[in-house]
């Protein structure tokens, strides 16, 4: 029975955690000290759950670790105090801190696979915490471990004890590290991005588990995340951070409904709101450019094994069409096969079964130079899409000279034009990738793709490595240049708000199959398939925060 979050606001108890004017400095290899956390102050009442939201580089992770009195090598707490359960952690000596870690305050790490010792069974690691930190005897530790695993909702705890971390699923691993953290029932439990590595369905289950834990424990909880939906789901109060400072803090209902600061509004703006009109422009109805029918793909296994035990199917019976100039969204979580689909269309991979017809002609494994020119791709990680040892201008001019055969002067003039269309100052042409921001690098990659004058552009998670503030700007430029060049686009992403903003039609994929396809507005407002509904529910929590009536409806 999901408890409404409203009741919690009333039980205002004496603050468990008081952070006053906390600053943390980090000394880089070049010797310069810069403040990662700058004058942060906040309180946390017993039983309350605080969400610390911020983009990468905002200092939220460093702050989380500071709550356990721990700083990574090279950084030190340069000021302020952290009062927890009567002690000021900043003043405590290392042994005193060590005695409290695990017992008074504990942390659930971000990446469970890397945070568990790979050469030890999960059972033994949990019992180690129980024996050493909770002081239980071997037998008692074993029983308590089984109990904890059961409490975490892990299947057959007895059998799970003997398994190694890499043999568990993502969700199971998250539950194991959660069990380790609460083994000694700490007063303060800090969770660092608890659901980032999980798919939406598992994320929902883990959040449900965390919600149950919160009500069963007296202690306070701090959840560090970049995902405002998670904050809206389980936190009472929220603290928005940017560049090491607190931009805004307060109850989730107030902050999400009427944010005071511009930065908060920007973050909330990026969240998916289906009630407003979709901003995607309808494309002029051109004739069909790309037709895919009956596409199947499996990863090649060594020949003798292929007949005996062929690998699991990555794509099964995929079919879609894309008209000239049209933008089609492809939604799917990791492992859904959406990236493999992109790989087959661009020619990186070759399908086992099915046909890919491009502008009337079937695409073979070896593409003609013209086909290579007309299909271009932009990748997820901006830094790795540009050769770090060449100036960005050269990377963009390369396709111009390869396909258009322009000479140096004409190519650099065309590159400058493309830069302007993407909102980049021409003098950036002579810079190296490392001297540009993530957003700028991605825009250069887009410029390089459009330099070839393509008819079809494949975008594979091009925004997921960027901060929310930068995403919006990038998508606008992409939409502008795409419309001017009349290029069709296959927009592959897990972020529903990107599809809502760019694509008129959408395809939802899961486990290598297409579950649903159709108009974006129709599917997003009234999804027929339960999986799509769950995705939409998870992605719209931030938008519905503060309106209890909406929360009940979508669960």
């Amino acid at each position, binding site marked *: 029975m999901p408890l409404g979050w409203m009741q919690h606001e009333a039980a205002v108890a004496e603050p468990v955690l008081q952070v006053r004017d906390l600053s943390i400095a980090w000394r880089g*290899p*070049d*010797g310069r000290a810069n403040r990662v956390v700058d004058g942060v102050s906040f309180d946390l009442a017993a039983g309350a759950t605080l969400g610390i939201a911020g983009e990468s580089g905002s200092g939220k992770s460093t702050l989380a670790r500071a709550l356990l009195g721990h700083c990574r090598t090279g950084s030190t707490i340069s000021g302020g105090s952290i009062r927890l359960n009567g002690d000021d952690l900043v003043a405590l000596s290392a042994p005193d801190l060590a005695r409290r870690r695990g017992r008074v305050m504990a942390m659930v790490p971000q990446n469970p696979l890397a945070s568990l010792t790979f050469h030890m069974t999960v059972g033994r690691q949990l019992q180690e915490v129980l024996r050493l930190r909770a002081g239980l005897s071997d037998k008692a530790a074993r029983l308590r471990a089984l109990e904890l695993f059961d409490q975490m909702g892990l299947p057959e705890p007895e059998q799970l004890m003997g398994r190694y971390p890499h043999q568990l699923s993502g969700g199971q691993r998250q539950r194991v590290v959660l069990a380790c953290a609460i083994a000694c029932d700490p007063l303060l439990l800090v969770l660092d991005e608890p659901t980032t590595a999980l798919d939406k369905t598992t994320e929902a289950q883990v959040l449900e588990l965390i919600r149950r834990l919160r009500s069963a424990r007296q202690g306070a909880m701090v959840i560090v995340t970049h995902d405002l939906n998670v904050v809206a789901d389980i936190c009472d109060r929220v603290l928005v951070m940017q560049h090491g400072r607190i931009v805004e803090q307060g109850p989730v209902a107030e902050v999400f409904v009427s944010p005071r600061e511009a930065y908060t509004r920007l973050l909330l703006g990026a969240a998916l709101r289906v009630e407003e009109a979709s901003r995607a422009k309808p494309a002029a109805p051109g004739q069909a450019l790309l037709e895919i029918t009956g596409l199947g793909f499996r990863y090649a296994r060594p020949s003798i094994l292929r007949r005996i035990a062929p690998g699991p199917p990555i794509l099964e019976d995929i079919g879609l069409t894309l008209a000239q100039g049209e933008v089609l969204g492809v939604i799917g979580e990791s492992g859904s096969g959406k990236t493999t689909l992109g790989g087959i269309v*661009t*020619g*990186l991979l070759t399908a086992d079964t099915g046909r890919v017809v491009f502008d009337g002609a079937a695409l073979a494994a070896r*593409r003609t*130079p013209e086909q*290579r*020119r007309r*299909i*271009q*791709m932009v*990748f*997820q*990680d901006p830094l*790795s*899409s*540009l*050769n*770090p*040892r*060449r100036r960005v201008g050269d*990377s963009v001019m*390369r*396709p111009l000279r*390869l*396909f258009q055969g322009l000479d140096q002067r004409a190519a650099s003039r065309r590159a400058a034009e493309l830069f302007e269309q993407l909102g980049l100052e021409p003098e950036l042409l002579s810079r190296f990738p490392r001297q540009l921001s993530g957003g700028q690098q991605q825009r250069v*990659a887009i410029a*390089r793709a459009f330099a*070839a004058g393509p008819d079809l552009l494949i975008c594979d998670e091009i925004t997921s490595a960027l901060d929310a503030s930068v995403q919006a700007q990038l998508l606008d430029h992409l939409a502008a240049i795409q419309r001017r060049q009349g290029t069709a686009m296959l927009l592959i992403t897990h972020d529903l708000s990107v599809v809502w903003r760019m694509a008129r039609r959408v395809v939802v994929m899961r486990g290598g199959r297409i579950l649903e396809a159709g108009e974006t507005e129709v599917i997003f407002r009234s999804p027929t398939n339960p999986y799509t509904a769950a995705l939409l529910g998870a992605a719209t929590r931030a938008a519905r925060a503060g309106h209890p009536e909406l929360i009940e409806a979508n669960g």
Partner: protein
Amino acid sequence: MRAMLLRPAASLGLLLVIAHVLIAIAAPWIAPFAPTSLLDTPLEPPNATYWLGTDDLGRDAFSRLLWGGRVAMLVAFSAGAVAVLGGALLGLSAAYRRGSFDDVLLRLVEMKLAVPTILFVAIFVTGFGQSVPVLIVAVGIIQMMGVVRTTRAAGIVLMEQGYVRAAQLNGESGPTIILRDLLPNVADLMAVEFALRASSALLLVSALSFLGLGISPPTPDWGLMVEDGMALLESEPALVLAPALCIATLVLGINLAAEGLADALGLDAARGGSG
């Protein structure tokens, strides 16, 4: 480069290497006597004119010490260059093409590790004579296999990068991708490998000279001077200790510089040093 100088050990190492190289280059001008001319009675103890005394043919030991590093360093550094360039090209083409070429190359690397170094050089030297170019190629090939392994590993990682995929999709040719996209991005790894290969080449050359398979008289060479001086360790210790000290300090300098460079570039130097 600046980051490297912050590490005291690395700058000491760099200093040692630069000092040795300068001395070797300036030897013809700063050496008091010609290294091969027979000056005085053999085995004179160190005195005002002959700072380290005379060697067993009556030549000035100090001048020979100054000249002694030239050939050893020439062989070590050029063998290092041969190893790093050859190894990188082989390693990267294996990473680019994979398939049978990669398998065959790995077999060759594994095979080279199985052949004892001394046997490989002995065969090479007896087959083609004991001149400096032959030594450079022989020592270069020995060191190359280690470089192939590290550059291949780095190459495989680079092949996953976006800009390499984009180049492949645009139909760029293999050599262009290897030379334009892969090679410049393993340059830092190659710098560290060069330092490691040069230092182990130097050790190998001095051992070979000791066994009579390396640099041959009358070229002044530290390895030879140690081997010659060994018979006189009791009476004229300087004849052995000075060249041995030079070999050790030069190799130490290169290793320290390599460690510093590796830390500065965030690479792992130790693992690159094997093979």
